């Protein structure tokens, strides 16, 4: 076993050292996810939607359905967030209808953009969202929650 391991080490060195870039901002997003999981209203394991921190610093949650949920500053929105950098109708989120356990987000022509994991969507662009993705709109960070099909992780 020792000789095989050494042979393998020799065959790998140094071609692979340094060829994997450190993940950009992944850990910062994960810290936010962890905070949401710790403070999320029960049952966190079955929540299918969005988490964020409200003005009191508590974790708030909203479910996502098949019908698009419009997010913005305007009173007509399904989810109203108070941020001056949000557009009146900023973006819309709904469950993805394509055979994947996911959500889908669409930018509604926002001024300051809709960002997913640090990448800005094209204006009026769409993107699929998966568990733990972080949506940033108008300075507000929303964590995507997409548990398993059985309603959450099992033991």
């Amino acid at each position: 076993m020792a000789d095989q391991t050494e042979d393998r080490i020799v065959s790998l060195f140094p071609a692979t050292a340094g060829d994997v870039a450190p993940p950009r901002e992944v850990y910062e997003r994960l810290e936010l996810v962890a905070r949401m999981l710790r403070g999320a209203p029960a049952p966190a394991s079955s929540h299918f939607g969005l988490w964020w921190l409200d003005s009191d610093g508590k974790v708030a949650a909203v479910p996502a359905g098949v019908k698009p949920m419009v997010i913005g500053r305007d009173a007509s929105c399904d989810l109203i967030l108070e941020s001056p950098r949000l557009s009146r109708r900023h973006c819309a989120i709904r469950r993805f209808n394509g055979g994947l356990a996911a959500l889908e987000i669409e930018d509604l022509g926002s001024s300051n953009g809709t960002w997913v994991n640090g990448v800005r969507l094209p204006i009026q662009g769409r993107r699929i969202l998966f568990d733990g993705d972080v949506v940033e709109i108008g300075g507000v960070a929303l964590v995507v929650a997409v548990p398993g099909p059985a309603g959450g992780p099992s033991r």
Partner: protein
Amino acid sequence: MITTNESLLDRLRADNAQEAWREFFAAYWGVILRYGRKMGLRQDQAEDVLQETMVVLMRKLPEFVYDRRKGRFRNFLLTIVHRRALAVFGREARNPAVAWEELSPELVNQVSKDHRGGESEAQARWREALLEEALRRLRCDGRLGAGTLAVFEAYVVRAEPAIQVARRFKMTENSVYQIRNRVLRRVKAEVRRLQQSAGDPLEP
């Protein structure tokens, strides 16, 4: 602070686990990224695998009862990583057949099952990812000097004759052999450290 009897895995399941998660991430981000790249994923896709693997663990571990008799933790971890990598592949093709699945003993057995009497492909890929990450860490944190690495590369990687390497670096042949052995020991020790960070005993 870790007690002598408390593994990182136990600390990950505790209420105040922020520091433990930081350690776990620091220990495994490179291995998971490499595993994704070895599966043929791009860097951004491999980062998706890393993120989603960590989120799954954050959801599952606090309630997870680790029964050593059901398998090693690293096989559970490998199963999660492997499934996420397959899922990311499936998304690219918008393949509805590749959907999220709950972790199950059957799935763990598939990843760890051996068809030929040796380790599975996934385990081999994981082992290589561990070795590569160990090498990267040794390079980056300066534990091995540039001169030591240069000697190792010349003798071991480029397979130059020991006497030639010794002359070039103005040392004895015996020193060249010692450097080879020292670097290999460090790599193996680093791999052991990675494995032990999750409370997993060493392989025999």
